């Protein structure tokens, strides 16, 4: 059987500019990435890694660490939350209801679906429990169901907050509970029209007074019209006691995961940047989020680099655009972030873990792994270090695709894999 490892559906190479060859000469990561000239052939370069199973394989983790699957056969796990008693909540589902507006959307939607799971959206929270602390999560049950593409999770005291794709809801939670006692109440509606980027990432402030909710743009680069972008590409700050919100930061195209830095208390986000400007544009990034800050989308990228696909343009907005802190590389699709906070030891004590779902708009695959960004004094300091790899096999097929990453205070990293529908747990060997 000689099936190609990569489903290179639309690679009309002669029409495309060469890519990948000069990756080595470019700075892909860090505070000052190389920004080549925008390039786009007649066809967008769509290369999707065809899914395959893990079989007996496991993700590759650094020496001194071990990995195991603690839950399988889930219904599209995205983000996880470790509860005070060590239980793990898993948000499962798939959202979005963007209709196809052009022939392109019909074709691209079909191609992208080839790289994703065909499982139905779970729309639920699953609770995993390891009663005896042996690392095997023998108890697995449904904590809540009939949710609407839940994604962001946060626990403040006895309140469990869940960011559905259309609303922020609250459950009462008691330690040890394995099933929600009642249907949730809505704290606030969230922008959900179209929901091109539907994930509602969420984290809580240290004092528990606020929740931060990431609301992605409704298009790649305004191709659904400026009107569709009201209250999009923003991070909301929501008061937990009233549900009132304000826009905390804007111009963040798709903030897919948020986390508070444990030492500085500042808000950090991973952001998926725009496509169709070439294999090494535009860098997806990890950044601290400044209150009131504008991060460029749609008018410019990586600070003040104007995106000429946007009309009308806005030079004032371009001038006000903040350059993000740290490039993760273009098209790697970061969907998870959490700070190590000294829980995993060794070289992984101070820094951020980032789950990278992996590219589709690039000939050479990028992402498809979990990396660690070392920090020093609350700022990124150094190149990314691979923490969990092996999500792409030797033939270029995808065994899994990482999404949410959560540091378990017991000394583990929880990785949600939404292609193989697995939860991985990486621990330091003792």
């Amino acid at each position, binding site marked *: 059987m000689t099936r190609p490892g990569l489903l290179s559906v639309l690679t009309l190479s002669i029409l495309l500019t060469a890519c990948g060859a000069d990756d080595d000469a470019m700075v892909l990561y860090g505070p000052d990435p190389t920004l080549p000239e925008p390039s786009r052939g*007649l066809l967008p370069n769509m290369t999707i890694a065809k899914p395959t199973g893990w079989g007996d394989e496991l993700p590759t983790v650094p020496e001194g660490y071990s990995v195991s699957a603690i839950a399988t056969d889930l219904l599209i796990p995205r983000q996880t939350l470790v509860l005070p008693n060590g239980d793990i909540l898993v948000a499962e589902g798939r959202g979005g209801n963007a209709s196809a507006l*052009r*022939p392109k959307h019909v074709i691209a939607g079909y191609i992208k679906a080839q790289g994703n799971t065909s499982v139905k959206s779970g729309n639920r929270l699953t609770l995993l429990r390891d009663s005896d602390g042996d690392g095997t999560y023998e108890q697995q049950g449904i904590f809540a169901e009939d949710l609407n593409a839940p994604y962001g999770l946060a626990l403040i005291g006895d309140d469990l907050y869940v960011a559905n794709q259309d609303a922020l809801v609250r459950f009462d939670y008691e330690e040890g509970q394995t099933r929600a006692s009642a249907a949730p109440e809505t704290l606030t509606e969230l922008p959900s029209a179209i929901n091109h980027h539907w994930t509602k990432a969420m984290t809580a402030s240290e004092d528990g007074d606020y929740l931060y909710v990431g609301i992605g743009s409704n*298009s790649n680069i305004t191709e659904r019209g*400026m009107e569709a972008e009201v209250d999009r590409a923003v991070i909301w700050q929501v008061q937990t006691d009233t549900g009132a919100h304000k826009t905390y930061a804007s111009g963040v195209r798709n903030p897919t995961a948020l986390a508070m830095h444990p030492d500085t208390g500042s808000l950090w986000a991973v952001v998926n940047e725009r496509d*169709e400007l070439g294999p090494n544009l535009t860098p997806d990034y990890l950044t601290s989020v400044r209150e009131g800050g504008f991060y460029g989308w749609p008018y410019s990228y990586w600070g003040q680099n104007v995106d000429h*696909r946007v*009309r009308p343009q806005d030079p004032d907005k371009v001038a006000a655009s903040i350059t993000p802190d740290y490039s993760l590389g273009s098209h790697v699709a970061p969907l998870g972030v959490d700070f190590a906070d000294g829980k995993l030891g060794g070289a992984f004590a101070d820094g951020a873990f980032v789950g990278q779902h992996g590219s589709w708009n690039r000939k050479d695959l990028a992402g498809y792994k979990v990396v660690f960004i070392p920090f020093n004094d609350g700022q990124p300091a150094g190149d990314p270090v691979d923490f969990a790899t092996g999500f792409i096999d030797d033939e270029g097929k995808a065994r899994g695709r990482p999404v949410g990453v959560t540091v378990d205070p017991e000394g583990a990293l929880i990785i949600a894999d939404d292609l193989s529908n697995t939860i991985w747990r990486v621990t330091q060997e003792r």
Partner: protein
Amino acid sequence: MTATVDRSHQTPQMTLSPLHAVLLAGTIPLFLGALLSDIAYFQTYQIQWVNFSSWLVAGGLVFTALALLCGISGLFRAEGHSGRSKLYVVLLLLTWVLGFINSLVHARDAWATMPSGLILSVIVALLASIATAVRFSARRTGGAL
């Protein structure tokens, strides 16, 4: 003495079936519609116009392709050996190829379609009109496909 004139030798009259005629004539409003939508987007930045032109170009390509099939099959009939029917097929093929490139340009996001999409729409609408004029001016309505 009365001379009998075989008109088909004087002016090359090619059969144009109703189906072929409809398919061919349909290319003009579709590509013209795409052109007008592109002009509207160019002037207003209202994205819906370029959505319209994307579909209109796609529709024009379907009609052009079917008319092209009719035209090519005509080449294999006796009347298809005329220079005019070959010119028609070449024009229509060119319309389709440039129309296809135009559809790829229209698959770009937002203003990345401009100005090349508008320029191509002008050329394609003109080509479709010329191809149609060439074929209709040499028609004999009715008959086989």
